[in-house]
């Protein structure tokens, strides 16, 4: 018998299964098609603003995505480097052949983990607790916990023009029964939608009409293992083009043929606001003369070029015209047509912060089924669901990351507390304390947790401790070493293009000057690695703001530590606004802080709850 069954082998499922197996729980990963393990059905990239930091966090906790991406990337960039330390983030072009291959190898070589190719029909539930699953061929498999990570495969429909086909991504088999079963079990089922652009044959593109977009010349990795696998000097470039007036004309002329604009009249799915289709962009921003498109290579092993920014649900003949109106693509051959996909998801407000469902015990969900969009968002939920499923099996408290600790904490809290309307994508602005949640310090924030649950091995942990020590030492050195107002001292400052001094100054204070970079002091601190130097530079330069953020976060966390009794009866609190009452009833927040973040729950409602807990709750319970 298995302890854990993971349904779905996408980015969430892989992380979940690896986590439980590595935490020594016998795990079965069930996938509809083993060839699609860790598939990237949409863009060939990993990371991006905020998302790149999530990958770093996954790595710090002992997840796989960062390592796997490092082994498969063909181009790497540090985004936002000029916009400040808090918002820097990595983005890679990942090879769509290599990434799934590396992930599958990892899964296969992991102890306690088996993979089964099958479709799940139903959950076995007794006394509101999950006991196993029934496959579509009626086989029964028992387990102690089940993690559902089905992505877009629940009752998915592929939409192209006026056609609707019951299929998964790439025309794969879809799961027809599981979402009905979930509905019967008490879950609210939502319909969401997303889309993907056409793929173009690289050999038919005239790249001379495009602008080359190269990777960064500095080497980077997602993983704190810091192993560089890609050829930094020979990265595969992307190319930039713009839509033309003809493109816009074609789209406007054929608008009613798009699935979303009348081609189909039964669309219920809500699409992501942050990833509109090209027809959406042209309708909603009609004053914009052109839209940016990126030509991204999917793999070095085949010819598909992903046309980022051009997702559409137009019929194929219109897609042909649209593509041929683009510069450089006049004679392009479309290898795969764009499509929109509609799928079922559950209401994430029915989950606990551990990602266990409130409806069925020992059942966890992660990824797109929870209403998110994006590989990274899925992977981090899979990891947390896996960790918490394992902790549950071990009768331990779940790992719940705070909003001030990780983007992962922000993401899960948002899902559970606020719920989602459209597919949720992580943005840096969703985090209150992004100066704390940086790309450079994910290891400092989370390695300890990863080690505690057993996903960070001793080697890696020791490396982390050494880095921590080095940071401490470097700060000490900066504070004790001074530059004196001698001729030599001032010559040194003049060379650095900074103001001369009359009194001696510590290197620590010197580093606070905006124009001073730690790399200009590097020859004094050659023994320290670049990531140590970077982290120290940030923590010195922005010390005041980091301290302030820490203080604010502490206050914030205090509200999160104000617990709301789990058996609170909201109907007994007089004068609660009915919208607030309903939402509180659904979310059942565990703390005042969480309650405050529920949309539709106003300050007034919060004070009523607090007054009630203070004055009447204990009385009511007697």
């Amino acid at each position: 018998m298995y302890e854990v069954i993971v349904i779905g082998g996408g980015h969430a499922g892989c992380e979940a299964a690896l986590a439980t197996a590595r935490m020594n729980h016998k795990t079965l990963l069930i996938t509809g098609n083993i060839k699609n393990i860790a598939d990237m059905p949409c863009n060939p990239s990993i990371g991006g603003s905020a998302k790149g930091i999530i990958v770093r966090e996954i790595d710090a906790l002992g997840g796989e995505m960062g390592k796997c991406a490092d082994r498969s990337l063909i181009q790497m960039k540090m985004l936002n480097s000029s916009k400040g330390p808090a918002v820097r983030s990595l983005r890679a072009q990942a090879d769509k052949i290599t990434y799934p291959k590396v992930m599958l190898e990892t899964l296969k070589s992991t102890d306690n983990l088996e993979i089964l190719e099958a479709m799940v029909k139903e959950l076995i539930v007794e006394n509101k607790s999950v006991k196993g699953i029934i496959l579509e061929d009626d086989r029964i498999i028992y387990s102690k916990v089940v993690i559902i990570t089905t992505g877009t495969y629940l009752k998915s429909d592929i939409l192209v023009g006026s056609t609707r086909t019951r299929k998964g991504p790439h025309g794969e088999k879809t799961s027809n029964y599981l979402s009905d079963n979930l509905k019967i079990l008490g879950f609210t089922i939502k319909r969401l939608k997303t889309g993907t652009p056409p793929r173009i044959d690289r050999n038919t593109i005239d790249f001379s009409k495009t602008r080359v977009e190269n990777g960064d010349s500095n080497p980077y990795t997602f993983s704190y293992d810091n192993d560089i696998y890609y050829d930094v000097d020979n990265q595969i470039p992307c190319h930039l083009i713009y839509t033309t007036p003809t493109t816009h004309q074609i789209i406007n002329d054929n608008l009613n043929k798009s699935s979303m604009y009348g081609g189909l009249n039964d669309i219920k799915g809500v699409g992501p606001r942050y990833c509109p289709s090209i027809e959406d962009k042209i309708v909603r921003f009609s004053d914009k003369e052109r839209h940016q498109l990126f030509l991204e290579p999917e793999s070095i092993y085949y010819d598909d070029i992903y046309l980022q920014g051009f997702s559409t649900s137009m019929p194929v003949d219109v897609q042909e015209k649209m593509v041929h109106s683009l510069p450089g693509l006049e004679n392009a051959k479309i290898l795969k047509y764009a499509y929109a996909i509609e799928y079922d998801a559950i209401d994430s407000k029915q989950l606990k912060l551990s990602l266990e469902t409130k409806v069925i015990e020992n059942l966890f969900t992660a990824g797109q089924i929870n209403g998110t969009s994006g590989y990274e968002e899925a992977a981090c939920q899979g990891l947390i669901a896996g960790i918490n499923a394992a902790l549950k099996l071990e009768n331990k408290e779940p790992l719940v990351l705070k909003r001030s600790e990780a983007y992962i904490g922000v993401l899960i809290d948002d899902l559970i507390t606020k719920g989602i309307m459209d597919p949720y994508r992580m943005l840096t602005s969703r985090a209150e304390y992004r100066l704390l949640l940086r790309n450079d310090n994910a290891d400092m924030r989370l390695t300890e947790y990863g080690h505690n649950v057993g996903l960070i091995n001793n080697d890696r942990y020791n490396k982390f401790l050494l880095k921590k020590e080095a940071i401490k030492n470097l700060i000490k050195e900066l504070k004790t070493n001074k530059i004196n107002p001698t001729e030599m001292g001032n010559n040194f400052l003049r060379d650095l293009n900074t103001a001369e001094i009359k009194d001696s100054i510590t290197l620590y204070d010197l580093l606070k000057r905006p124009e001073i970079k730690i790399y200009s002091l590097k020859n004094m601190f050659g023994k320290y690695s670049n990531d140590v130097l970077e982290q120290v530079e940030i923590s010195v330069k922005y010390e005041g703001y980091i301290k302030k953020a820490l203080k604010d976060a502490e206050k914030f966390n205090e509200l999160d530590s104000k617990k709301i009794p789990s058996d609170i009866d909201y109907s007994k609190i007089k004068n609660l606004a009915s919208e607030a009452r309903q939402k509180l009833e659904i979310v059942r927040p565990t703390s005042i802080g969480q309650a405050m973040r529920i949309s539709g729950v106003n300050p007034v409602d919060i004070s009523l709850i607090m007054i009630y807990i203070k004055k009447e709750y204990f009385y009511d319970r007697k």
Partner: protein
Amino acid sequence: MNDTIAAISTPLATGAISIIRVSGQDSIKIANKIFIGKDLEKVNDHTINYGHIYDKKELIDEVMVSVMKEPNTYTREDIVEINAHGSIASAKKILELLLKNGCRLANPGEFTERAFLNGRIDLVEAEGIMDIIESKTEKSLSLAINQLNGNTSNKIKNIRKKISDIETNIEVNIDFPEYDDIEVLNNDIIKPKLIEIRKDLNKLLLNSKDSQIIKNGIDTVIIGKPNVGKSSILNKLLDEEKAIVTDIPGTTRDIVEGTLDINGIRLNLIDTAGIRKTDDIVESIGVKKSISLIEKASLIIMVLNNNTEITKEELEILNKIKNKNYIIIINKIDLKKNINDNNLKNVIYMSTLENKGFDELKEAIIKMYELDKINTNDFSYLSSSRSISLIEKAIDSIDKSINLIDELMPIDIVEIEINKASELLGDILGINYKEDLFDQLFSNFCLGK
């Protein structure tokens, strides 16, 4: 919140009428127990009913009772208001009876708190109500009402919108860095926008400070040596304005000898007991005490005698007031001029006997405080000191963000201060939640509303 509260809603002073307000689910039932007249539980909603309040068989007062049923009331609960015609004593007696029959004495500001908690008013409005309660002149009443109309809220919302427009643009730049066709808000573009926002906030702050004057009046002290004519000046001012002369505590916690209305602005004439009676302030309490009065006051009116030379004590005081708002009255110009006024500024020549100089005095005050420029119609302000201090903090944050730009800090650091400003403005509007905010706010309310 399910108990019924009561309090005397009018000032504890002898006026034409006192109102005792009751709010809560049992308010009508309880009022009915002590009222002889129509059956209040059967009268129509929103009616005024004539009758008497009895304590058992003893007649307490002849009253009019308003019955207003929820939800169309101030607190959105059942409200009864008893208009009593008698003395403070009878109002207190009625309150006592209500408490005996099941009401709880309202905490300071609790009616407004309930109105707020029941969603009838937002925070800015709640603060405005506090101002209506305390408003003592016509202009400050219209100020308070103006605020209730959401005028101020709108101004703040507009400024906040300008800030969030910047925030949103920065966020788009950060979260979608690959889009080079979206305007990238770098520090050079943001700076002028921030300077404009700062201007808006400053205007609001200045207006708000004016509104403090409108609301609280100008604390004024009249000083001068014996027989210089202080009491006649004061009495003349007060008589003319028919101001109410009371001993109620003023905003400075000093005794307010009287208040007078200039252009709708209240002048609080502060003093220790009685310059009107003794007229010998410099002599009896000495220069030292005069100086401490000068420090407390916002406006000093120093009275000198046209007929005599300036004394050493007077010189000492003149020296003390030179950095304050002051007006010098040279009185008794009907007598021979012996004073050397060459070096004096802000001088008004006056004769109480011949009724000369009073208009000039008022003009001088109006000019000094630019009272004629305070226009309550086109005017947005925050009248509570909490809101004003929040605006000040928001300005500080905007200043800091501008400084950070000058220090070449990256945009994500600059944005921290911009966010802060937006959050502070949200605090004024009650959009963000702060735990103690409400306790703090509502304990600032006067009892009974």
